[in-house]
């Protein structure tokens, strides 16, 4: 139904911009474009980041799988491996803790006036991505494929219907959020 829309490049650029504006507006209203809120999460004193992420995941998970069930959306799970996801994830985390923003909230922080995000963070992330592009052929021939698990999703690993995973996953995540509230965090 939306196939033709998906292939209209110009329209998609405008849609991307509009969706980004909504995303950035929400991130700022949630407080996560602020260094203090993100670093507070990493120091485990402020749980705003986790609350936003998990409620987005719960809402998104239900909606996307419902859209998929009626043929209106298809999944795009990213491939991964132990070498890529674990090591890359840990390297990312070190940068995340040092900078105090992730790539999306970094763009939001720039919009809110954080000059160290612009002069330090944006320039840094561009340099880091450039380094990776230069090293990519070597990494791709080795570590990125160690322990490859491909574009796997949990319902496919477990060979079950998607809702058999979605419903327990949503319950666990909502339960975790309730526990956070109960603990006064």
């Amino acid at each position, binding site marked *: 139904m939306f196939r033709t829309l998906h292939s209209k490049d110009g329209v998609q650029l405008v849609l991307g911009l509009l969706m980004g504006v909504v995303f950035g507006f929400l991130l700022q209203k949630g407080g996560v474009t602020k260094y203090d809120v993100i670093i507070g999460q990493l120091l485990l004193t402020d749980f705003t980041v986790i609350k936003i992420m998990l409620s987005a995941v719960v*809402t998104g998970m239900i909606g996307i799988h419902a859209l998929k069930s009626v043929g209106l959306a298809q999944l795009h799970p990213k491939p991964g491996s132990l070498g890529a996801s674990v090591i890359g994830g840990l390297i990312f985390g070190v940068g995340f803790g040092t900078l105090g923003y992730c790539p999306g909230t970094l763009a939001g922080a720039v*919009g809110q006036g954080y000059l160290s995000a612009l002069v*330090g963070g944006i320039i840094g992330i561009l340099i880091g991505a*450039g380094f990776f592009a230069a090293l990519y*052929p070597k990494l791709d021939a080795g570590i*990125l494929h160690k322990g490859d698990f491909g574009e796997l999703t949990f319902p496919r690993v477990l060979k079950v219907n998607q809702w058999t995973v979605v419903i327990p996953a949503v319950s666990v995540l909502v339960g975790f959020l309730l526990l956070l509230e109960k603990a006064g965090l």
Partner: protein
Amino acid sequence: MKQWSPYAVGVGIGILSWFTFLLSDRPIGCSTAFARTSGMIERLFRGSKVAEKPYYALFAPTVDWEWMLVLGIAIGSFLSAQLSGEFHMRWVPGKWAAALGYEPVLRVATALIGGIIMGFGARWAGGCTSGHGISGTLQLAVSSWVAAICFFVGGIVTAVIIFRLIAG
């Protein structure tokens, strides 16, 4: 209102993700846009040879949907901050200044180093807190759950080292 409930914001982002799948057939993600931009900048210096690099053959150095999304984030955040009077130019965030002192050069240098490590790690892991942390986990992708947990493990350890050991 200056700040909304984190749950209202999270549900809003979740609903936004329905529309990115429905209307654009794409999950929300941010870090690829930085890799493309890096390629565009390199092209200014090295010309069209850049496109032959294997990485840029996969992620062409061009403006695409996700690039516009990241631009939109900065604009949306600016609008929201303006509406609630929260837009201020500043070099050193409060928590940093309280723990490590008000020294813009130190903060910018640290942000630069953090940015380099994060940009490198995001491409190594194939995504960031949005692409893996929200979009990938909601699709129940194995790679994304593994990566997202590692993002926070690395981030928590690093923040604790900086704030509790170095500044403490």
